[in-house]
């Protein structure tokens, strides 16, 4: 009977993954409670563990949990422990139902498709409710830190604008304050020592100096945010409080230090799986669970077979059907070769195109699977024709589509040339470089079960859709069993 259940765990496509109706703890801004040093939150895959390494956290008056702006939001609105310090689309839909859309997470500024839409309508928040996407208005042309315009190698036109914000008179590309609105998932505010690690002076992918932390003058990892636009947690907090919270003044240094201190000590990962049982029991894979994240050293390259990205899963290569599947998935991630093609900032930096390698080549940082180098890559999620969106008009998505035309003096996009259609120009909106169009900074792989949907554009509702994208994109020819193994592996991280 147990074996039958285990077989079902594999055979079923887990289509209902992450869509269960679980009660989770939504922390309201301004709440007065104490978060324990170790907490657990149920999700449809099992249980997520969250550790506050510095001990219990009193949220009363804490700037991470307290609205500092004008719209009632606090950092915690979009970075909820129950959702892996991010927030899931399912959780947002539930929040809409519970509050009739009045929760400050739905603030007009960026919690709706555009501030000039009727805010009481659910349809005005469709990108957030369907995909978990917040609007990110970025100045056009890109600006230096002092507000001066950066040189830009391309022009940008709005081809389609279902959300209406890029053609809006007030908020659009041709408004008095020209901006490009892209829509992105909030990244987990946890395990950040890994995100911030690996900060060489020169960025391998560009041959240029890395950005500097303005507080210390030291180079930074450039792995924060989908486009690496913020160098440090401190600058990110300022930007988020002025932007997402619509504060009129910058937070105090003391508040910022408290936010950064909190963010720097949170660790989260899945601790239990409905079919796999405890993921952190003695004798299991040493990389699972938040305590492992807390205790391990950051900034270690894992693209090797002696100390792999997520450690060894050999102890699970036994009779337990689910655990054996996870172990096979770990092996596929590390060892399954395929032709990695046409990925800017991977194939284009001297590794050759194509490159016969494995997932771990790019997702090489131990414990998180990010890139140890500055991690922006055009893997094809945003740019036509490989983008995650439907390829025909009839099925078109709600994301905007931009046409990028590179100047003749600039280096073109390495695999798409001088005219590119994209739903998100990514890093190019910060660097102004044509080669960066569609490049997005890789995300960490931890706590995935708690925070669907996936990709920076929220296009993959389930981990199966993530795996399917890569299978198509790189012609991996994964069997159904291999896909299940990968999904099960990702689901326990």
């Amino acid at each position: 009977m147990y074996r039958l259940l285990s077989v079902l765990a594999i055979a079923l496509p887990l289509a209902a993954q992450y869509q269960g109706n679980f009660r989770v703890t939504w922390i309201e801004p301004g709440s007065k409670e104490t978060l324990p040093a170790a907490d657990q939150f149920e999700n449809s895959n099992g249980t997520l563990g969250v550790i506050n390494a510095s001990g219990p956290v009193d949220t009363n008056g804490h700037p991470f949990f307290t609205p500092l702006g004008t719209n009632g939001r606090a950092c915690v609105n979009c970075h909820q422990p129950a959702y892996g310090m991010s927030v899931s689309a399912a959780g947002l839909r539930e929040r809409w139902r519970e509050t009739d859309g009045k929760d400050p997470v739905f603030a007009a500024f960026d919690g709706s498709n555009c501030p000039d839409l009727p805010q009481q309508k659910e349809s005005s928040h469709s990108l957030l409710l369907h995909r978990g996407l917040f609007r990110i208005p970025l100045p056009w042309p890109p600006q230096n830190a002092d507000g001066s315009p950066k040189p830009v190698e391309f022009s940008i036109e709005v081809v389609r604008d279902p959300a209406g914000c890029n053609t809006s008179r007030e908020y659009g590309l041709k408004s008095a304050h020209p901006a490009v609105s892209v829509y992105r998932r909030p990244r987990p505010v946890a395990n950040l020592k890994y995100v911030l690690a690996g900060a060489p002076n020169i960025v391998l992918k560009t041959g240029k100096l890395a950005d500097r932390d303005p507080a210390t003058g030291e180079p930074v990892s450039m792995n924060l945010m989908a486009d690496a636009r913020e160098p440090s947690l401190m600058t990110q907090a300022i930007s988020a409080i002025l932007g997402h919270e619509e504060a009129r003044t910058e937070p105090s240094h003391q508040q910022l230090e408290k936010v950064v201190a909190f963010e720097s000590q949170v660790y989260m990962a899945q601790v239990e799986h409905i079919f796999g049982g405890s993921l952190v029991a003695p004798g299991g894979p040493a990389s699972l669970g938040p305590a492992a994240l807390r205790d391990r050293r950051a900034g270690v390259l894992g693209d090797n077979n002696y100390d792999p990205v997520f450690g060894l899963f050999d102890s699970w290569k036994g009779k337990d059907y689910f655990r054996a599947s996870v172990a096979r998935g770990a092996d596929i991630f590390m060892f399954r070769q395929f032709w990695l093609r046409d990925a800017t900032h991977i194939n284009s930096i001297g590794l050759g195109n194509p490159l016969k390698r494995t997932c771990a080549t790019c997702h090489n940082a131990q414990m998180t699977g990010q890139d140890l180098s500055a991690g922006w890559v055009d893997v094809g999620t945003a740019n036509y024709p490989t983008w995650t969106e439907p390829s025909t008009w009839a099925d078109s998505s709600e994301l905007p589509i931009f046409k990028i035309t590179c100047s003749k003096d600039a280096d073109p996009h390495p695999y798409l040339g001088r005219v590119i259609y994209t739903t998100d120009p990514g890093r190019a909106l910060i660097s102004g470089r044509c080669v960066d169009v569609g490049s997005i900074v890789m995300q960490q792989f931890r706590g995935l079960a708690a925070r669907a949907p996936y990709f920076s554009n929220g296009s993959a509702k389930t981990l199966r859709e993530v795996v399917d994208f890569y299978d198509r994109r790189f012609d991996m020819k994964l069997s159904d069993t291999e896909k299940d193994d990968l999904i099960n592996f990702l689901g326990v991280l």
Partner: protein
Amino acid sequence: MRAAWLLCFVAAAALAQERNFIACPVVRDTKTVPCFLAEYQGELYYLGIQQDITDKFHPPQLKHQVLVEGRVAEGPRVCGGIPLQPLSISVLKEIDLSCDTILPAEPGMDAPPAARGAGPSSVRPAPRGTPSAALTGRQEFTVRYAFNDEYADFAAQFVVTEAAGYAKRIGAAAVKVAGYRATTLLSNGERLVEKTGLAEKRAQDVATLLRGSGVANVSVDWKPEAEPADGEQDASRRRVTILVMP
């Protein structure tokens, strides 16, 4: 007169061994790492194998033509191609969708031994030495580039880092950066000239890297005119020199 004739003959013979051409790269899979090849005048030439970013050979890219600057080397064919050594390859920037050939692996068509296979690395990295530690006095470092390219690749970044380390260690009184662009003489007689302004761009970029690495007293110069071509050493003239003076 006879000596001059002999000299001309030797020079012509040397040039006859040069293979400077533009072509689509061809990828040949093997049971280990892929080989990269290119065809010129009906003959297939072996360029190299897939390696790590730290290797001195950086493979070409499908969807792009490659500029090959090499000399026919002694020895048997490799992966079905005539080996070239020394060899410089440059990926041309504009895309060419016709460059799309991947040949399947064939029995007996093996890649040379590779330090790293197609999977994760199995070799623990050795502690990186600091070659500049042994240096003294006035030293010149040379950063090399692919054709028409300003990207400081891994090898270039290593040179700049070494130069910066040395300059800081000795407290250099002056660090002179000089940028160059060059011309390539193809085997068919055509000349390719790198774009205007590239010498300055390369030099300024390297100076920025040095200053950002904490090097003081950096001055920058560049030669606006393209270096001439001889069909033999053209790749080596695409460069930035860093002269570190105590």
